């Protein structure tokens, strides 16, 4: 299997693209990779890329987006010219992490490094602990009664569960976007301004900050004339982008996303995925998704989790099976369970 970061012949763009869009096909290993970009001109990737026919492989939703000026469409992971390092540099690092809810061990023995300015996807069947692990990456699990984390989770080298660390500061630096869009019952403007206000950010102009956050979340043009209106008037997809904008406004380093598109229609989903590609330039993103195609489309690296039954008690607990570049996970996984899951044989 060729490494997609080094080889992307223009002639195979179309087929590899189709392969990336269909997880079943990618697992057979026919594509050149899950990561070539389709829009080299807009993306600034260089001259060695896409023929116009590649566009015919875009989904309907993407086509709609594609026709809008100023929108770039990416259906795959990191652009081929951007080298993905072999090992993630570990802005967040999990060392032997166990997560408990009371006596129940939801996640067992996870060792996982997340790379700076990378998109990492956590995939796996229901109950495999991927959301639980995600919530322990910014101490959101602290809010669940009885939840506790063993092992070490570090952020930029510092143990985020150390007694002297303020969980509020952790959450400001590592933001989170949830499954269901959860705008506050306030105006669009106040939704964005809430974070900077409560965290006491020094802001020279709140108006500018709101505009910047909404622009980065690709929502500004749609809402700039109704900033004072209730956020509840927005569509589901717009609400989710508002929640992303709200997270961006407090200037975090990492954004955790817990199935951010599972409540959205396909067009809104494409927009969020597109947005994630733009955001990767400035932020590190970790996304939990049930949708394997989504992981194939957006993620640089993918971690596959599964649930194992404990031999003694029979309790099921989540374990990390395999963690590698997305192209490897989807084309030539090392573990049979990964292969089975990717090809749809279980989960």
């Amino acid at each position, binding site marked *: 299997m060729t490494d997609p970061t080094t080889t992307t012949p223009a002639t195979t763009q179309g087929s590899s693209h189709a392969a990336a869009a269909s997880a079943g096909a990618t697992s057979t290993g026919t594509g050149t990779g899950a990561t070539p970009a389709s829009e080299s001109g807009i993306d600034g990737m260089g001259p060695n890329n896409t023929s116009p026919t590649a566009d015919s492989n875009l989904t309907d939703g993407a086509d709609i987006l594609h026709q809008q000026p100023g929108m770039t469409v990416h259906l795959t992971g990191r652009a081929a010219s951007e080298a993905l390092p072999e090992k993630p540099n570990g802005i967040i690092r999990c060392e032997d992490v166990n997560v408990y809810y009371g006596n129940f061990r939801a996640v067992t023995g996870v060792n996982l490094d997340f790379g700076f300015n990378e998109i990492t996807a956590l995939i796996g069947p229901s109950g495999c602990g991927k959301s639980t692990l995600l919530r322990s990456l910014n101490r959101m699990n602290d809010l669940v009664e009885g939840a506790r984390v063993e092992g070490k989770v570090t952020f930029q080298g510092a143990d985020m569960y150390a007694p002297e660390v303020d969980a509020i500061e952790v959450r400001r*630096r590592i933001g989170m976007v949830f499954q269901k869009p959860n705008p506050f019952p306030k105006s669009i403007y106040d939704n964005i301004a*809430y974070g900077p206000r409560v965290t006491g950010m020094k802001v020279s102009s709140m108006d500018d900050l709101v505009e910047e956050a909404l622009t980065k979340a690709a929502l500004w043009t749609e809402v700039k004339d109704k900033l004072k209106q209730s956020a509840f008037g927005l569509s589901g997809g717009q609400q989710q982008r508002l929640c992303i904008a709200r997270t961006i406004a407090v200037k975090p380093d990492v954004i955790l996303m817990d199935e951010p598109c599972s409540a959205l229609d396909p067009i809104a989903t494409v927009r969020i995925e597109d947005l994630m590609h733009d955001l990767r330039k400035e932020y590190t993103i970790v996304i939990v998704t049930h949708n394997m195609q989504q992981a194939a489309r957006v993620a640089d690296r993918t971690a596959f989790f599964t649930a194992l039954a404990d031999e003694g008690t029979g309790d099921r607990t989540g374990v990390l099976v395999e963690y590698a570049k997305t192209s490897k996970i989807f084309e030539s996984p090392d573990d049979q369970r990964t292969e089975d899951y990717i090809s749809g044989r279980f989960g």
Partner: protein
Amino acid sequence: MTSIIDRGTTPLGHRRSKFSGERTPRALIFLVLIWACLAFSFLFLLILIVTTFIDGADRFTLSLFTEYPASSPDRAGARPAIIGSAWVIGTTAVLTIPLGVAAAIHLEEFADKRKWYNRVIELNVQNLAAVPAIVYGLLALAVLSFLGVQNKNIVIGGALALGLLILPVIIISTREAIRSVPIEIRQGSMALGASKWQTVWRQVLPASVPGIATGSILALSRALGEAAPLLVLGALVFLSFDPNGLLSGFTTMPIQIFDWTSRPQAGFQELAAATSILLLGLLVIMNGLAIFIRNRFQTRW
């Protein structure tokens, strides 16, 4: 006309029998019975209201609002009782709402529900809401005696008794309002780096204000109609001055009604009916306000 596929079934809209489905004799008897129950209770309410209005309409005049109680019904009015009710209910609201809301916030947002003492407190708050009103009057009496207060018929004493009475109701309705704020809102706020306190103060509480207001108004309207706990405190029935402070003697509308109905003269009965009309009107307005607030300002998640 025949249907497209003939399976021998009757077309929709045609009953096989006059007495099938929801029109079996049993169902019809049950329906008549529950209608009769409703009519029965509604009839008595109607009779009560109509007779009150007939009795009191003539006395429902300006002098009811301006005159003090007197030995002759023609010169008597409920002015001190109206002002006294306003004083007592106002003081009750000021004493009780902040306390009840704070207690509810603690129980709902901060108390660790796994601790047994918090569960005991929760259970007791539920139980307290069902305790007879007069018990709170006795409790207030005991507290005032303990504090060495000689004259217990004072506005603050009445407010204390009524406050104890409605505190559980306010706590319960506030908890309901707080609980109706989705957990996602709290998570969204915390995920932005807000503290627990900021989340409660800036998200949860504003979103539950309509529910808290509705519950509080309903609780206060209950307090407005109470007489028993105030009678235990030895409420006055013949006041020739306006209550004008927390330590002032007072009477309230229910007590005035209670006193007037026990008099033999027909004129006092009419005055009682007129005061009842006023009290009823106030209760309708308060409950209407509560419904209005709920419908108009409640956030739909």
